[in-house]
Protein backbone atom coordinates (compact mmCIF):
# COMPACT_ATOMS: atom_id res chain seq x y z
CA UNK A 1 0.00 0.00 0.00
CA UNK A 2 1.09 3.54 -0.69
CA UNK A 3 2.69 4.78 2.50
CA UNK A 4 1.43 8.32 1.99
CA UNK A 5 -2.14 7.00 2.14
CA UNK A 6 -1.41 5.60 5.62
CA UNK A 7 -0.40 9.05 6.80
CA UNK A 8 -3.77 10.47 5.72
CA UNK A 9 -5.52 8.55 8.49
CA UNK A 10 -3.96 10.20 11.56
CA UNK A 11 -3.65 13.55 9.74
CA UNK A 12 -7.20 13.94 8.42
CA UNK A 13 -8.96 11.55 10.78
CA UNK A 14 -12.40 10.04 10.54
CA UNK A 15 -13.70 11.68 7.31
CA UNK A 16 -10.85 10.18 5.30
CA UNK A 17 -11.41 6.81 7.01
CA UNK A 18 -15.10 6.81 6.02
CA UNK A 19 -14.16 7.80 2.48
CA UNK A 20 -11.54 5.03 2.05
CA UNK A 21 -13.91 2.40 3.48
CA UNK A 22 -16.86 3.61 1.38
CA UNK A 23 -14.95 3.83 -1.90
CA UNK A 24 -13.40 0.42 -1.22
CA UNK A 25 -16.83 -1.16 -0.69
CA UNK A 26 -17.99 0.44 -3.93
CA UNK A 27 -15.22 -1.31 -5.83
CA UNK A 28 -12.53 1.37 -6.03
CA UNK A 29 -9.23 -0.46 -5.44
CA UNK A 30 -8.38 1.17 -2.11
CA UNK A 31 -7.03 -0.73 0.92
CA UNK A 32 -10.15 -0.37 3.05
CA UNK A 33 -9.47 -3.47 5.17
CA UNK A 34 -6.01 -2.12 5.97
CA UNK A 35 -7.51 1.28 6.82
CA UNK A 36 -9.82 -0.40 9.37
CA UNK A 37 -6.94 -2.46 10.82
CA UNK A 38 -4.85 0.66 11.19
CA UNK A 39 -7.76 2.63 12.68
CA UNK A 40 -8.23 -0.24 15.16
CA UNK A 41 -4.55 0.08 16.14
CA UNK A 42 -4.80 3.85 16.49
CA UNK A 43 -7.93 3.39 18.62
CA UNK A 44 -6.10 0.89 20.84
CA UNK A 45 -3.25 3.32 21.55
CA UNK A 46 -5.64 6.22 22.16
CA UNK A 47 -5.30 8.25 18.95
CA UNK A 48 -8.97 7.68 18.04
CA UNK A 49 -12.13 6.75 19.90
CA UNK A 50 -13.05 3.14 19.13
CA UNK A 51 -16.78 3.95 19.03
CA UNK A 52 -16.31 6.70 16.43
CA UNK A 53 -14.08 4.48 14.29
CA UNK A 54 -16.68 1.71 14.38
CA UNK A 55 -19.58 4.06 13.56
CA UNK A 56 -17.76 5.81 10.71
CA UNK A 57 -16.56 2.56 9.10
CA UNK A 58 -20.01 0.98 9.34
CA UNK A 59 -21.73 4.07 7.93
CA UNK A 60 -19.25 4.36 5.04
CA UNK A 61 -19.63 0.68 4.15
CA UNK A 62 -23.44 0.69 4.33
CA UNK A 63 -23.79 3.81 2.18
CA UNK A 64 -21.44 2.39 -0.48
CA UNK A 65 -23.10 -1.04 -0.48
CA UNK A 66 -26.53 0.51 -0.93
CA UNK A 67 -25.29 2.74 -3.76
CA UNK A 68 -23.97 -0.41 -5.47
CA UNK A 69 -27.30 -2.12 -4.87
CA UNK A 70 -29.23 0.85 -6.35
CA UNK A 71 -26.90 0.98 -9.33
CA UNK A 72 -27.54 -2.72 -9.95
CA UNK A 73 -31.27 -2.26 -9.61
CA UNK A 74 -31.73 0.80 -11.85
CA UNK A 75 -28.80 0.23 -14.16
CA UNK A 76 -30.01 -3.35 -14.21
CA UNK A 77 -32.72 -2.70 -16.80
CA UNK A 78 -30.05 -1.77 -19.33
CA UNK A 79 -27.80 -4.63 -18.29
CA UNK A 80 -30.53 -7.25 -18.27
CA UNK A 81 -31.20 -6.86 -22.03
CA UNK A 82 -27.61 -7.77 -22.74
CA UNK A 83 -26.92 -10.28 -19.97
CA UNK A 84 -30.37 -11.81 -19.47
CA UNK A 85 -29.05 -15.37 -19.01
CA UNK A 86 -26.35 -14.40 -16.49
CA UNK A 87 -28.78 -12.33 -14.44
CA UNK A 88 -31.31 -15.17 -14.36
CA UNK A 89 -28.63 -17.41 -12.90
CA UNK A 90 -27.60 -14.73 -10.40
CA UNK A 91 -31.25 -14.30 -9.49
CA UNK A 92 -31.68 -18.02 -8.89
CA UNK A 93 -28.48 -18.13 -6.83
CA UNK A 94 -29.44 -15.12 -4.75
CA UNK A 95 -32.99 -16.29 -4.08
CA UNK A 96 -31.62 -19.66 -2.95
CA UNK A 97 -28.85 -18.41 -0.67
CA UNK A 98 -28.67 -14.68 -1.40
CA UNK A 99 -28.61 -13.56 2.20
CA UNK A 100 -25.56 -15.67 2.97
CA UNK A 101 -23.81 -14.55 -0.24
CA UNK A 102 -24.27 -10.97 0.90
CA UNK A 103 -23.19 -11.78 4.48
CA UNK A 104 -19.99 -13.63 3.62
CA UNK A 105 -18.95 -11.27 0.82
CA UNK A 106 -18.79 -8.48 3.45
CA UNK A 107 -15.86 -9.97 5.32
CA UNK A 108 -14.79 -13.57 4.58
CA UNK A 109 -14.57 -13.15 0.79
CA UNK A 110 -14.55 -9.35 0.78
CA UNK A 111 -12.96 -9.02 -2.71
CA UNK A 112 -16.34 -10.22 -4.08
CA UNK A 113 -18.38 -7.63 -2.13
CA UNK A 114 -18.80 -4.84 -4.73
CA UNK A 115 -19.88 -7.33 -7.44
CA UNK A 116 -22.40 -9.00 -5.11
CA UNK A 117 -23.96 -5.57 -4.37
CA UNK A 118 -24.54 -4.96 -8.09
CA UNK A 119 -25.86 -8.46 -8.72
CA UNK A 120 -28.18 -8.33 -5.68
CA UNK A 121 -29.67 -5.07 -6.99
CA UNK A 122 -29.91 -6.29 -10.58
CA UNK A 123 -31.49 -9.59 -9.48
CA UNK A 124 -34.15 -7.60 -7.58
CA UNK A 125 -33.28 -9.03 -4.18
CA UNK A 126 -35.71 -7.56 -1.61
CA UNK A 127 -34.04 -4.49 -0.10
CA UNK A 128 -34.96 -5.44 3.47
CA UNK A 129 -33.23 -8.79 3.07
CA UNK A 130 -30.18 -7.09 1.53
CA UNK A 131 -29.81 -4.45 4.23
CA UNK A 132 -30.23 -7.02 7.02
CA UNK A 133 -27.43 -9.31 5.80
CA UNK A 134 -25.36 -6.30 4.71
CA UNK A 135 -25.56 -4.75 8.18
CA UNK A 136 -24.70 -8.06 9.88
CA UNK A 137 -21.79 -8.75 7.51
CA UNK A 138 -20.29 -5.25 7.66
CA UNK A 139 -20.59 -5.22 11.46
CA UNK A 140 -18.59 -8.47 11.54
CA UNK A 141 -16.03 -7.03 9.08
CA UNK A 142 -15.48 -3.78 10.97
CA UNK A 143 -15.43 -5.43 14.43
CA UNK A 144 -13.10 -8.21 13.30
CA UNK A 145 -10.59 -5.95 11.56
CA UNK A 146 -10.64 -3.36 14.36
CA UNK A 147 -10.05 -6.13 16.91
CA UNK A 148 -7.19 -7.63 14.91
CA UNK A 149 -5.72 -4.14 14.46
CA UNK A 150 -5.94 -3.52 18.20
CA UNK A 151 -4.50 -6.92 19.13
CA UNK A 152 -1.57 -6.72 16.73
CA UNK A 153 -0.95 -2.98 16.81
CA UNK A 154 2.82 -3.38 16.92
CA UNK A 155 3.04 -5.51 13.77
CA UNK A 156 0.09 -4.12 11.89
CA UNK A 157 1.61 -4.01 8.41
CA UNK A 158 2.66 -7.64 8.64
CA UNK A 159 -0.79 -8.73 9.79
CA UNK A 160 -2.43 -6.70 7.01
CA UNK A 161 -0.29 -8.48 4.43
CA UNK A 162 -1.25 -11.90 5.84
CA UNK A 163 -4.98 -11.08 5.86
CA UNK A 164 -4.97 -9.64 2.34
CA UNK A 165 -3.36 -12.81 1.00
CA UNK A 166 -5.64 -15.09 3.01
CA UNK A 167 -8.86 -13.36 1.85
CA UNK A 168 -7.64 -13.38 -1.74
CA UNK A 169 -6.91 -17.12 -1.44
CA UNK A 170 -10.40 -17.77 -0.01
CA UNK A 171 -12.05 -15.61 -2.69
CA UNK A 172 -10.25 -17.52 -5.46
CA UNK A 173 -11.18 -20.85 -3.84
CA UNK A 174 -14.86 -19.84 -3.75
CA UNK A 175 -14.73 -18.70 -7.40
CA UNK A 176 -13.03 -21.95 -8.40
CA UNK A 177 -15.71 -24.02 -6.66
CA UNK A 178 -18.52 -22.06 -8.35
CA UNK A 179 -16.92 -22.28 -11.78
CA UNK A 180 -16.31 -25.98 -11.27
CA UNK A 181 -19.93 -26.54 -10.25
CA UNK A 182 -21.20 -24.52 -13.22
CA UNK A 183 -19.08 -26.54 -15.66
CA UNK A 184 -20.08 -29.82 -14.05
CA UNK A 185 -23.81 -28.96 -14.26
CA UNK A 186 -23.40 -27.91 -17.87
CA UNK A 187 -21.74 -31.21 -18.73
CA UNK A 188 -24.39 -33.10 -16.84
CA UNK A 189 -27.17 -31.29 -18.70
CA UNK A 190 -25.49 -32.06 -22.02
CA UNK A 191 -25.18 -35.67 -20.97
CA UNK A 192 -28.92 -35.77 -20.25
CA UNK A 193 -29.71 -34.25 -23.65
CA UNK A 194 -27.59 -36.82 -25.39
CA UNK A 195 -29.14 -39.67 -23.47
CA UNK A 196 -32.67 -38.43 -24.29
Amino acid at each position, binding site marked *: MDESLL*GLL*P*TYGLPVLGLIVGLGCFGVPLPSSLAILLAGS*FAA*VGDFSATSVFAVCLAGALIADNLGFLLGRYGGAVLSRRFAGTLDKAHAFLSARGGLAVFFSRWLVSPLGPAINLVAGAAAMPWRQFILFDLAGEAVWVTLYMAIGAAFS*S*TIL*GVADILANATAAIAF*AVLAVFLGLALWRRRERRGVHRAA
Partner: protein
Amino acid sequence: MVLFGGRAVYLAIYWSDPAHVAQTLEPWMTPRYVARSYQVDLHGLTAALGLAVKPGDRPTLEALARHEGLSFADYAAKVRQAIDTVRAAPHG
Protein backbone atom coordinates in the same frame (compact mmCIF):
# COMPACT_ATOMS: atom_id res chain seq x y z
CA MET B 1 -5.20 -19.40 -4.90
CA VAL B 2 -2.21 -21.55 -3.93
CA LEU B 3 -0.01 -18.51 -4.47
CA PHE B 4 -2.04 -16.30 -2.14
CA GLY B 5 -2.53 -19.09 0.41
CA GLY B 6 1.18 -19.86 0.38
CA ARG B 7 2.05 -16.20 0.80
CA ALA B 8 -0.33 -15.93 3.77
CA VAL B 9 1.36 -18.90 5.48
CA TYR B 10 4.86 -17.62 4.68
CA LEU B 11 4.05 -14.16 6.05
CA ALA B 12 2.42 -15.64 9.17
CA ILE B 13 5.67 -17.50 9.88
CA TYR B 14 7.77 -14.42 9.09
CA TRP B 15 5.82 -12.16 11.45
CA SER B 16 5.68 -14.74 14.25
CA ASP B 17 9.46 -14.30 14.62
CA PRO B 18 9.95 -11.87 17.55
CA ALA B 19 12.88 -10.27 15.72
CA HIS B 20 10.43 -8.85 13.16
CA VAL B 21 7.91 -7.63 15.71
CA ALA B 22 9.23 -4.13 16.37
CA GLN B 23 8.46 -2.32 13.15
CA THR B 24 10.87 0.20 11.75
CA LEU B 25 9.71 3.75 12.24
CA GLU B 26 7.44 4.93 9.45
CA PRO B 27 6.34 8.46 8.48
CA TRP B 28 2.67 7.69 9.26
CA MET B 29 3.27 6.60 12.86
CA THR B 30 2.15 8.78 15.77
CA PRO B 31 3.94 9.17 19.14
CA ARG B 32 1.30 6.98 20.86
CA TYR B 33 1.71 4.34 18.17
CA VAL B 34 5.51 4.40 18.51
CA ALA B 35 5.25 4.13 22.32
CA ARG B 36 2.99 1.07 21.99
CA SER B 37 5.02 -0.52 19.21
CA TYR B 38 8.31 -0.17 21.09
CA GLN B 39 6.71 -0.77 24.49
CA VAL B 40 8.00 2.41 26.09
CA ASP B 41 6.15 4.88 28.29
CA LEU B 42 4.39 7.55 26.19
CA HIS B 43 5.11 10.41 28.58
CA GLY B 44 8.73 9.42 28.83
CA LEU B 45 8.98 9.31 25.04
CA THR B 46 7.28 12.67 24.43
CA ALA B 47 9.37 14.23 27.22
CA ALA B 48 12.57 12.90 25.65
CA LEU B 49 11.48 14.33 22.30
CA GLY B 50 10.45 17.65 23.85
CA LEU B 51 6.85 17.22 22.67
CA ALA B 52 3.58 18.15 24.31
CA VAL B 53 0.99 15.78 22.84
CA LYS B 54 -2.46 16.92 23.98
CA PRO B 55 -5.41 14.50 24.08
CA GLY B 56 -6.93 14.35 20.60
CA ASP B 57 -3.64 15.34 18.97
CA ARG B 58 -2.12 12.68 16.73
CA PRO B 59 0.76 14.21 14.82
CA THR B 60 2.58 11.84 12.46
CA LEU B 61 6.37 11.50 12.63
CA GLU B 62 6.47 13.06 9.17
CA ALA B 63 4.59 16.15 10.38
CA LEU B 64 6.80 16.41 13.48
CA ALA B 65 9.92 16.16 11.32
CA ARG B 66 8.65 18.90 9.03
CA HIS B 67 7.78 21.04 12.04
CA GLU B 68 11.37 20.78 13.29
CA GLY B 69 12.78 21.34 9.82
CA LEU B 70 14.39 17.89 9.75
CA SER B 71 14.30 15.16 7.12
CA PHE B 72 12.27 12.12 8.12
CA ALA B 73 15.43 9.98 8.38
CA ASP B 74 17.04 12.48 10.78
CA TYR B 75 13.89 12.71 12.88
CA ALA B 76 13.55 8.91 12.98
CA ALA B 77 17.12 8.74 14.31
CA LYS B 78 16.11 11.24 17.00
CA VAL B 79 13.07 9.13 17.92
CA ARG B 80 15.20 5.97 18.13
CA GLN B 81 17.58 7.80 20.44
CA ALA B 82 14.63 8.94 22.59
CA ILE B 83 13.39 5.33 22.79
CA ASP B 84 16.83 4.22 23.99
CA THR B 85 16.88 7.04 26.55
CA VAL B 86 13.49 6.01 27.96
CA ARG B 87 14.49 2.34 28.06
CA ALA B 88 17.73 3.20 29.87
CA ALA B 89 15.88 5.31 32.46
CA PRO B 90 15.31 3.58 35.86
CA HIS B 91 11.53 3.35 35.56
CA GLY B 92 11.38 3.40 31.77
